């Protein structure tokens, strides 16, 4: 089952301060939606509202026509996964055991065979086979993020297609090479699995290179949203970030220079 998401006039207040103002947009399966905006513009809150970890003050979020507030957290965890910037573990753990944690919402005491199969699949897919018995703390930042991505993958990969994936600045601690390979793999999985993906990202050029749909947030309001062809304009970036940029054409691709 693939998932569609609708935001309808979503407002979020935290400590009486308005963080999100009347945000409305749609997310479709197989689409990678990039969220762009300056620090404090409400990007992470937007993601958390869909992650069901902040409460809405008004408005609704619909997941396949069902109001998100009526979906129990434990059920939602079976088809919605979230990857954050960086994850530190309290205790030493093996890579394999961490990846299996992504399956915890799906079994009670003992993992089913599907859970173990998915873990194996993820270890291959994320090139972690040689690391499976390594301690998490002994890995580099890029490798650690791959482990967490694998954990998030197994959480929603059991369905033939469909799932909601939320990525909160997952590239922050990765070098350029790992950023690109991360996005490459993400791109492939989004098409293959028909996930509806929301990703908070800072790098404008990477966002336009890999994204399908774009949201621009400023001071909690959705300034603009649309497909690449509609929003990839220097004026837009100027407005969102209060910063002058130029657009450069190179082999039919556009880049921003700043």
């Amino acid at each position, binding site marked *: 089952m693939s998932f569609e998401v609708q935001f309808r006039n979503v407002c979020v207040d935290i400590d009486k301060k308005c963080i999100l103002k009347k945000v409305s947009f749609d997310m479709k399966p197989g689409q990678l939606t990039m969220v762009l905006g300056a620090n404090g513009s409400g990007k992470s809150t937007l993601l958390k509202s869909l*992650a069901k*970890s902040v409460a809405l003050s008004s408005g609704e979020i619909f997941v396949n026509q069902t109001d998100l507030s009526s979906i129990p*957290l*434990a*059920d*939602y*965890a*079976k088809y*919605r*996964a*979230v990857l*954050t910037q960086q*994850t*530190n*573990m*309290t*205790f*030493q*753990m*093996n890579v*394999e*055991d*961490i990846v*299996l*944690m*992504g399956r*915890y*919402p799906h079994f*009670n*005491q*003992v993992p089913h065979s599907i859970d173990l199969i998915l873990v194996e699949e993820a270890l291959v897919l994320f090139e972690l086979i040689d690391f499976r018995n390594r301690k998490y703390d002994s890995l580099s930042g890029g490798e650690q993020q791959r482990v967490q991505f694998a954990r998030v993958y197994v*959480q929603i990969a059991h369905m033939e297609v469909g799932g909601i994936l939320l990525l909160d600045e997952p590239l922050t601690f990765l070098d350029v090479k790992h950023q690109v390979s991360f996005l490459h793999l993400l791109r492939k999985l989004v098409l293959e699995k028909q996930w509806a993906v929301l990703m908070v990202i800072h790098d404008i050029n990477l966002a336009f290179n890999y994204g399908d749909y774009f949201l621009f947030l400023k001071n909690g309001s959705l300034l603009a949203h649309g497909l690449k062809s509609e929003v990839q304009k220097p004026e837009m970036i100027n407005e969102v970030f209060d910063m002058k940029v130029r657009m450069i054409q190179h082999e039919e691709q556009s880049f921003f220079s700043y």
Partner: protein
Amino acid sequence: MAINSRFILLLFVLGSIFTLFFSAIFGSVSIDFSSMAQAISKTIFHGELNLQERIFMELRLPRVLLAFATGSILSLGGSMMQSLFRNPIVEPGLIGTSSGAAFGAAVFIVFGSSLNEWFSAFALPTFAFLGALFASVLVFSFSYQKTGMNVLGILLMGVALNALFLSGIGFLSYISRDPQARSITFWSLGSLSGANWQNTWVIWTVLILSILGMIPLNKQLQLFALGEENARYLGVNVSRLRIQAMLINVLMVSVATSFVGVISFVGLIIPHIYRLIAGSTDRFRTFNTAMLGGIFLCFTDLIARVLFAPAELPLGVVTSLVGVPIFIILLKRTNVL
């Protein structure tokens, strides 16, 4: 992985049985296997017990069972608190439970002699239990917020209350007469010499109920290692889990502490030792942690009883003396230190 964890479980079950027998044999009087069997069968069929058999039935067996259950409770509480607070140096007494119990006990030891006779048998445990509950409720009520429990608040309140109760205990021993002060000290270092069948039944009931309550929480607590936010993303109701786990912890630890006094270090060290042996995601973790704690405390109590027999060492002293070297060796072996 499955075979490995079953193997560890089996090892621990055998280890527990061995430990219970082994520590029942030795003491100021040695008891062999046949008199144990005789004592048990005579008790069941209402036979006359001789002196050795009576020592086994009335002193040794309840004491060994009390030691095992206490060790289990402390290490389970420690394991749960460490997961919950995402902090490896937390122990079950952190939220004021054991220092509250010690304070309650000290109040009774100093002022209790003026109370009536009817109160005698369970008086000390009752005071200790009330002290433990009082301290825990105080910590919770200060750190409870509308949005849920404030973890840092609990830790800080726990530290503050621990200091307050410890100075209260210090004050009480300062104003008390010599024998009373000695009892306070003895009790603050823990002792199993008060073992009888009554408290053994109570503590085993509490232990079994707590384990049954903890099994469904095991997976959720493991997810806490990824951080609260990630645990929530994996479907864990964080504030509910916190309340459940802390209630179980307070109940277990206050009952145990009220019978045997403050035994430090077991709750801190056993969860670590278990993690070094079996990792953090073992599915029999609840049982295994309980058994490892039980084995450890049985052996340390054996040492406390036997080393300077017939005199007894305070248990808290022995747990640290035995536990710290084991801990350091394991840390060295696994390259943590």
